[in-house]
């Protein structure tokens, strides 16, 4: 493991800022970029990379959700229901992380990421919103003001068991690989459960704080959250996600989806390259 010098802290800070910006734009934690960077480029052990990444995921979630609170974009009730599944999955992942071969997990993640990217690309034009303002969202659905169409949009949640299953899987992968799990939840909530991308991303960003904490606490107990590295990464991600949040409101849902799919393919290829070694 490389020694922590001011130069290394600066590099990690910058990497955090880039990951944070991309993460906030895509509704991911940003860990998807940070884990490969810390592990492959800087040569930190995978467990340490995952632990640092989970710490930044918590920070991103808290910052982004604090900034969005009061705008009804976060579906709190749905988020809290699905958290039961993500936190459970994350807890199980956290206690089994050191038992599973890393190469197996990396290849599995590569497959999942590629499949999700393809789903995103085939559903670019779907909107999932009911424009009639009098429509009832039901107990779990939501309403929010959409900037693009300048109206209040309503949506209903469909196929709840699928959302719960995806959340459990996302929580599990989160603590095993050190990511937020939004990479799995957001596309599935959007493609199959009727939730608009913007609301799915906001709700996912809200949930990943609790998800990453369930796994992060276990990494903390193992002593894998190195304070200096975590501090540099978290501060970088804080600044990056603040910037990404500003920019994200202006980007259109279609371009967000295309960008997200491209990112997923790159992550998939990187995971395969690493898992094959």
């Amino acid at each position, binding site marked *: 493991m490389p020694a922590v010098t*001011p130069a290394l802290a600066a590099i990690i800070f910058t990497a955090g800022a880039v990951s944070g910006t991309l993460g906030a734009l895509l509704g991911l934690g940003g860990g998807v970029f940070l884990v490969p960077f810390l592990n492959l480029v800087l040569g930190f052990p995978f467990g340490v990379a995952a632990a640092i990444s989970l710490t930044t995921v918590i920070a991103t979630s808290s910052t982004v959700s604090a900034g969005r609170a009061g705008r009804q974009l976060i579906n*709190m009730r749905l988020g*809290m229901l699905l*958290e*039961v599944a993500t936190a459970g999955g994350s807890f199980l992942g956290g*206690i089994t992380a050191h038992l599973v071969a890393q190469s197996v997990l990396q290849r599995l993640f590569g497959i999942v990421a590629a499949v999700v990217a393809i789903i995103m690309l085939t559903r670019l034009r779907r909107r999932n919103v009911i424009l009639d303002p009098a429509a009832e969202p039901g107990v779990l659905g939501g309403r929010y003001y959409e900037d693009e169409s300048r109206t209040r949009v309503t949506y209903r949640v469909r196929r709840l068991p699928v959302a719960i299953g995806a959340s459990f899987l996302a929580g599990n992968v989160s603590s095993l690989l050190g990511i937020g799990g939004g990479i799995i939840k957001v596309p599935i909530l959007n493609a199959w459960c009727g939730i608009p991308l913007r609301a799915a991303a906001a709700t996912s960003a809200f949930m990943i704080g609790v998800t990453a904490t369930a796994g992060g606490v276990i990494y903390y107990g*193992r002593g894998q959250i190195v304070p200096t590295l975590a*501090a540099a990464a*978290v*501060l970088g991600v804080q600044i990056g996600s603040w910037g990404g949040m500003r920019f994200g409101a202006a980007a259109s849902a279609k371009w967000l989806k295309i960008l997200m799919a491209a990112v997923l393919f790159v992550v998939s290829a990187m995971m395969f390259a690493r898992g094959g070694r």
Partner: protein
Amino acid sequence: MTQGERRAGAERLERIIGRVLRAGVTTSSVCLAVGLLWAMAAETSSMPRLLMQTGIIVLLATPVARVVVSVAEYVVERDWPFATLTAIVLLELLASAVAALLFNRRL
């Protein structure tokens, strides 16, 4: 519970949660920033490490505090299904803390 009451409760909860998250993330960021700069300037002192540890613990505690606040709010609103769901999430987080203590003892 009427639709209006439920919406008013949801908006209040969203505001409280926003405040809890902002307070937690601000406290931890300040601790981490001061600790990191201090550690880079003077490597011998143990204070910067303590500050960064505090920052990490506050960061980990923030989502837990958010769940605690949600449980309390749903209990006050007598929204039992959601009080139960958020209480389960809290138990899962406590289970993680117990697992962390067990790992810590083994190492």
